[in-house]
């Protein structure tokens, strides 16, 4: 008889304990992020697509259009075209990655002699067409500059978009 009541009381206490847990969770803040409407801050080591580092000294990118990243990319997804401003200095006027092929190996970032590339924290990359995952890094840099209130680097004067001409120049 004593064990009967003891069992009921211990069982009842355990039920109350369970209810205490759920009510505590009921008043905790929710953890869901309303995906398209809210943005979370990614961790510093998150790997999105690559982007130009905005140099705090010059307020622009550090790319010298050496094309090492283009050559090292195992998926060959970087399209970069450079133009000589004067005899010495060369700058890119077009830097496009086809992100759908990217395996996030990071070789382009490692190989860059001027460390002009970094991982972005962009994770909202869903799109409806294949073209939605082709990113213009140069345009992105201009956007970053606009957001930071810096003077926007203009696209350098470049030869007309022919097929043979720029490549011939690089190979020469």
């Amino acid at each position, binding site marked *: 008889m004593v064990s009967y009541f003891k069992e009921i009381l211990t069982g009842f206490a355990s*039920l109350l304990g369970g209810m205490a*847990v759920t009510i505590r969770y*009921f008043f*905790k*803040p*929710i*953890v*869901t992020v309303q995906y398209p409407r809210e943005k979370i801050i990614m961790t510093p080591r998150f790997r999105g697509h690559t982007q130009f580092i905005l140099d705090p000294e010059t307020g622009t990118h550090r790319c010298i259009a050496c094309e090492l990243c283009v050559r090292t990319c195992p998926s060959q997804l970087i399209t970069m075209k450079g133009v000589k401003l004067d005899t010495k200095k060369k700058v890119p006027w077009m830097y496009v990655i086809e992100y759908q092929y990217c395996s996030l190996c990071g070789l382009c970032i490692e190989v860059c002699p001027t460390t002009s590339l970094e991982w972005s924290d962009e994770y909202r990359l869903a799109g409806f067409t294949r073209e939605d995952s082709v990113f213009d890094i140069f345009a992105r840099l201009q956007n970053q500059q606009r957001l930071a209130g810096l003077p926007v680097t203009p696209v350098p004067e470049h030869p007309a978009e022919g097929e043979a001409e720029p490549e011939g120049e690089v190979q020469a």
Partner: protein
Amino acid sequence: MECLTHPAGVSVLGMLAGIIGVIALVAVNALFLIWMERKVSAHMQLRPGPMEVGWHGAIQTVADALKLMGKELITPRDVDRPVYLAAPIVVFLPVLLTFLVIPFSQTLIIRDMNVGILLILAFAALTVLAILMAGWASNNKYSVLGAIRSVAQNIAYEIPLLITLMSIILMVGSFSLVDIVAAQKTYWFVLVQPLAFILYLTCATAETNRAPFDLPEAESELVAGFHTEYSGMRFALFFLAEYTNMFIVAAIATVFFLGGWHGPFLPGIAWFFIKVYFVIFMIMWFRWTFPRVRFDQLITFAWKILIPLAFANLIITAFIMKLR
């Protein structure tokens, strides 16, 4: 039964207003409760729940109801047609009738009958019949298993439910819900009958076939139980009846234990609804805390724990009432 044989205070207009009011309450209550259930369950799991349609998903259930109305009513070939078609109506009508005697406030009650609680319990027992009809007529083994479980469970849990309510009725000396609420002017009966309140809540959870006693529709083993073969608005009627039953058992708990319309500052009807939805919140809280019990545990729990405790409570109450 005087009020049934001498319907002197009944006017046609009053009856019409009552019917419209009850149907509106049933519909709005079900829409609200489904939304509340989803919100409560979501917040207990650190989710926000429905957020897209309306303010915090408030009219999500309206959209769902509209979708259900547009669905095709499928009648499987081998069902027992008349019984199959009658079951959703049979489950819904007694639910509507029980609103007849619930006192929403001092003055807002359709009929104050001296058999009040007996009428509610008698009609609530008809729900079991409807579930059995639905399960049997569906010609589906899952449905009939769910129906059998439901009948066994509801009969087992109706006994302690009646006995616990009987201890309150002994204290008041009346079956009328208005008298029972009026007797709680100074203190609520939950203070003097805490055991009865706990027993009642347990039995009410089982009576409405809700977790942890939701074996009749245990989705992991029985598909959906007795309403597996129902679609569209027929399914919606079962759903509506289930949520309205929740409202009714919560209303009885409010009337018997939580002092009905009594409360400071706010008008009586506001207090009534606050208490009813608090009790419903408790029942939802049970659902999202406790895992489903096994069938033998369910029956053992009713016969070995609830019924002896309810009897003990009744006897002690009777003694105290006699000695006073």
